[in-house]
């Protein structure tokens, strides 16, 4: 069931008004988000005002787009003019952007109704949403487990049906991994496909904004709206927006699927679920073969060097001068900056700034940063080779089921290892979609489908074909 189309029909048939819909969703979100910790701010007043505009358009007979009146959540590192945007950090506790991110403008123009800003790991650094400086997010399928991260609020909110869709951002898996842990669909587009203008940067050469929804078609509708060239982002690819709806539903007979063996080293239950999904693809007429991406084991260390290096540079702007908060006890400007940053950045953020600064500092640049960039080239070659033979690659999203809150937070390396299946995709810049492929012990298991650069439409179609063969996207968490 495609939620966006269903609501659209109800709106134009005047079975419900956009204001009624917004009120209904807001009422549910208020209660639900206090249980799951999904939101850092709720924008009820704006939602009602925006919904009124949609109702006026409908009343005057004006044609409205598919996203008009649809309730959405936006990750709190995506700039929303006049709405506090904290990045999950104390250092931006009071920061109100003076402009909208391009994706936000596009969604507003399409009539999307913002209900609030989604909770996240501070500055998107984390894989469990436990690094939010404000509160943790809980997995709607099991309140004792993490929703994944860093876009944990965005994913859990969609899973709990607080909103119809949300935006997250993905630097090393931050859309796909929480989508997998929460049993929803999430797309990490090709680097450059969706404008990063207004996304508060973590690692600029890896970051991409991506949509999340309960099913593939809803996710695709949002992707079609937010993708496309933007002159405000100098790394924006000169490509048109995706037009997924034109191809969704096409046959996948003869589709060549590569299964890289290096990605199949996790929890047996997760792997068995994946294997069943691959068998389903064969039933649907695809050709499934094992393949190899030989440099996979080097991706994680390369990722953490590159991401930390870029973060140390990007986060230099938070110095208590132009925005955010300041430590007022210092008499000297350098002391003020150092004290502000020490006091208002969280532990993981400080650690990555330290690692990145060290990796870029005189004498170590070649050994760490340059080395990592060369490994990135080797990783890219692995994928270039694989895509000569395969249309798409399929892998798990994470080696484990959603883990317990507190289980990994004390041990950075264990936490980092959980990102083994996702980080490479950012290093090589290709698109990847996460979709639910089964359940184990009542918890969702996700898989990711990877494609060549700018193959988002194909990925949506392949994901859609699989989705239509099962009922995983129709299941709902039983909120206890």
């Amino acid at each position, binding site marked *: 069931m495609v939620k966006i189309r269903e609501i659209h029909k109800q709106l134009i048939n005047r079975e419900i008004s956009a204001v009624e819909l917004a009120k209904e969703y807001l009422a549910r979100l208020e209660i639900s988000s206090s249980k799951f910790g999904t939101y850092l701010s709720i924008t009820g007043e704006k939602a009602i005002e925006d919904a009124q505009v949609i109702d006026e358009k409908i009343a005057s007979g004006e044609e409205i787009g598919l996203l008009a009146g649809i309730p959405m959540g936006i990750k709190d590192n995506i700039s929303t003019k006049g709405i506090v945007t904290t990045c999950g950090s104390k250092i931006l506790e*009071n920061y*109100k952007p*003076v*402009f909208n991110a391009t994706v936000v403008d596009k969604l507003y123009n399409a009539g999307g109704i913002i209900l609030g800003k989604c909770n996240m790991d501070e500055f998107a650094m984390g894989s469990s949403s436990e690094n939010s400086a404000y509160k943790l997010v809980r997995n709607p399928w099991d309140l004792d487990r993490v929703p994944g991260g860093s876009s944990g609020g965005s994913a859990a909110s969609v899973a709990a049906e607080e909103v119809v869709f949300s935006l997250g951002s993905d630097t090393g898996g931050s859309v796909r991994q929480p989508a997998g842990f929460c049993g929803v669909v999430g797309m990490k587009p090709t*680097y*450059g496909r969706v404008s990063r203008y207004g996304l508060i940067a973590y690692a600029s*050469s890896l970051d991409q904004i991506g949509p999340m929804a309960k099913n593939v078609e809803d996710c695709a509708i949002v992707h079609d709206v937010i993708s496309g060239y933007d*002159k405000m982002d100098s*790394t924006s690819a000169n490509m048109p927006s995706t037009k997924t709806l034109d191809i969704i539903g096409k046959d996948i007979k003869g589709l060549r699927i590569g299964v890289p063996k290096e990605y199949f080293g996790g929890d047996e239950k997760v792997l068995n679920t994946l294997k069943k999904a691959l068998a389903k693809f064969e039933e649907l007429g695809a050709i499934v073969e094992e393949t190899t991406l030989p*440099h996979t*084991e*080097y991706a*994680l*260390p*390369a990722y*953490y*060097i590159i991401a930390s290096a870029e973060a*140390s540079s990007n986060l*230099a702007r938070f*110095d*208590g*001068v*132009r*925005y*955010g*908060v*300041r430590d007022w006890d210092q*008499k*000297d*400007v*350098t002391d003020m*900056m*150092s*004290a502000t*940053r*020490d006091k208002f*950045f969280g532990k993981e953020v*400080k*650690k990555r*700034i*330290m*690692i990145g*600064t*060290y990796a870029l*500092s005189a004498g170590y640049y070649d050994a*760490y940063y*340059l*080395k990592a*960039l*060369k*490994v*990135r*080239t*080797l990783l*890219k070659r692995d994928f270039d080779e694989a895509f000569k033979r395969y249309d798409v690659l399929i892998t798990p999203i994470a080696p484990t089921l959603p883990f317990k809150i507190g289980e990994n937070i004390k041990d*950075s*390396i264990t936490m980092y290892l959980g990102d083994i299946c996702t980080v490479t995709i950012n*290093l*090589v*810049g290709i698109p990847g979609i996460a979709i639910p492929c089964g359940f184990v012990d009542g918890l969702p298991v996700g898989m990711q489908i990877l494609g060549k650069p700018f193959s988002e439409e194909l990925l949506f179609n392949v994901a859609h074909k699989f989705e239509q063969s099962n009922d995983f996207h129709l299941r709902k968490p039983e909120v206890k």
Partner: protein
Amino acid sequence: MGITINDVKHVAILSRLGLNDEELQKYEEELNDVLNFMEKLNELDTQGVEPTSHVLDIHNVFRTDIIEKSLDLEDVLANAPDREDDYFKVPSIL
């Protein structure tokens, strides 16, 4: 091998992080752990491999040098912790 407490102090200064002694010690341990983990890359021979700093084939994006509307000064300064007239205000530099 490994990072000493003095290295950590130096990196903390470069990072503009005013860490206390306890934090410095903790970071010494944690940074060593993470850097050990990163040593894995040395197993690979990367001689002659070009670095990839960016995956897209985009270079030098230019636009015509026309003055466009900037952000409103009052809006921007509204986010500043401290200001004087049209300036950001900070504690003394010298």
